[in-house]
């Protein structure tokens, strides 16, 4: 048949289109996780690379759960994980408290102003993350803008300690991740039919009642997506606790970094990563479910 070669060529194209990105992801995304798992089960040694091989000369599989045992028994790690959850959770709440009214305000602004307001939310996102965190260092210094202002106003006599505190970390996290909260919230609020709220008010609900009965439940998918989008990266954050936090404000991203770069304990760093990943599996799967649902709705 004359068409057969052509048909094969069309099939080939399909296979190439699937295979190229698929292979890339298998090699550069999935394989690394297998390797992390493997190395987390090795012992650290002073060598290059600094861990024991997975198989000995006779081909026997060597697995050591020492790193995990150490993680579980050493109080430092448990408290660091808990602190990370707490810090990320607090940052998420801060973002929600600030982000919800903002998203609401933008969604209900005149249509002509909406795109500009939204653009102004996204603009900082395009400007270097690192430099935006850095900007706060100048503000929160002992002799920085905030303290100078407060002293000039006579509210305080001596500079108060802002930098290197948990407070500084909250501010940094909230500042960096606020757009991640606002954008999904805006998307759901903007889609929402304003008539619904008016119908509720028409049926006798007060403005506040209408908000809690109508707006809030309908905005929930956006709230959940936004919270997860803030919480997940905040959990693993390294730069913000390093630059704004004190030496005691440990978060797990920083511990992982230090285990790896400072202590050169690769197996332990890998184990820290795997436990962090396990903690995040539930929120990540939840987020993907919400995003898939959003996609089905055609957004």
């Amino acid at each position, binding site marked *: 048949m004359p068409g057969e070669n052509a048909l094969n060529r069309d099939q080939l194209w399909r296979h190439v289109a699937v295979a190229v990105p698929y292979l890339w992801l298998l090699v550069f995304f999935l394989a690394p996780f297998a390797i992390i798992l493997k190395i987390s089960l090795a012992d650290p040694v002073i060598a290059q690379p600094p861990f024991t091989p997975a198989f000995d000369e006779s081909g026997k599989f060597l697995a050591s759960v020492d790193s995990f045992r150490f993680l579980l028994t050493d109080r430092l790690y448990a408290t660091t994980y808990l602190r990370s959850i707490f810090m990320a959770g607090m940052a998420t709440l801060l973002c929600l408290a600030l982000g919800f*009214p903002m998203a609401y305000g933008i969604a209900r602004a005149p249509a002509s102003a909406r795109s500009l307001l939204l653009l102004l939310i996204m603009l900082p996102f395009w400007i270097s993350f690192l430099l935006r965190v850095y900007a706060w260092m100048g*503000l929160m210094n002992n002799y*920085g803008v905030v303290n100078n202002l407060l002293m000039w106003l006579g509210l305080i006599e001596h500079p108060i300690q802002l930098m290197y505190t948990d407070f500084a970390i909250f501010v940094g996290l909230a500042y960096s991740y606020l757009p991640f909260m606002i954008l999904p919230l805006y998307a759901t609020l903007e889609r929402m039919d304003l008539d619904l709220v008016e119908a509720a008010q028409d049926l006798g609900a007060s403005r506040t009642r209408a908000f809690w009965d109508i707006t809030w439940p309908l905005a929930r998918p956006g709230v959940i997506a936004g919270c997860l989008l803030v919480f997940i990266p905040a959990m693993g954050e390294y730069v913000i606790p390093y630059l704004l936090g004190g030496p005691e404000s440990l978060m797990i991203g920083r511990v992982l970094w230090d285990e790896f770069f400072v202590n050169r304990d690769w197996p332990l760093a890998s184990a820290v990563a795997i436990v962090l990943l396990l903690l995040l599996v539930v929120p990540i799967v939840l987020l993907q479910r919400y995003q898939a649902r959003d996609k089905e709705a055609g957004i």
Partner: protein
Amino acid sequence: MKPHSRFVLSVLAFGYAFLYIPLVFVIVYSFNDSRIATIWGGFSTRWYGELFRNDQVLDAALLSLRIAFTSATIATILGTMAGLVLARFGRFKGRTLFSGMITSPMVMPEVITGLSLLLLFVTLQQLTGWPGQRGFSTITIAHTTFSMAYVAVIVQSRLMSMDESLEEAAMDLGGRPVRVVFDITLPLIAPAMVAGWLLAFTLSLDDLVIASFVSGPGSSTLPMYIFSKVKLGVSPDINALATLLIAAVSLGVLIAWIAMRRMRT
């Protein structure tokens, strides 16, 4: 439209102030003559001059731009393919794993992505001798991997909102599948691909953590250089650098925004 309540208006004002005041102070202090960044010593542009005489900054910026350009381009090609596959190829064996792998890098904490990729490169080097040196190529691969996810999602959602019968019509009129992609699909998703490329470019320029893991000695990207400086505290030439970046991004975004408004009307 109902007027906003006072509460919503004040939160909006506070929120925008919160987002922009830090940037304003960085810009103001970049023109500060004093070496001590927190004390105002008069207007000056000396830090901009110093910045341009600093070879380290220029080298790092050049490396970052090269990486961003290369990785954004590869990511756009791979991400467009992936987006096409997800939106148009229906069910196939391994689709669930594929779509999972596409979206996961977006939500993966950077420390995990960075560490895992470094361990991969070390293992590959042991097994095959490549990569002999970590730097441009390893950072480019790492950036491509996570930014192709963003491109794929942008392209996929554009395709989902696009009428599939356009491609079917082209096929019905005698276009073979590959031809149809070039005749119909790509021209129509070009804006999404440009948006994806820009996002990938920015993400690459912005990344510190992953690059720090997968780079080798002697190759530092701009964020790595900045980080090594700001670790030690506020420094006036970084203020100047940040100002330049803010100006560049704002200008770019403004142009894109105006262009988009023009196109719509």
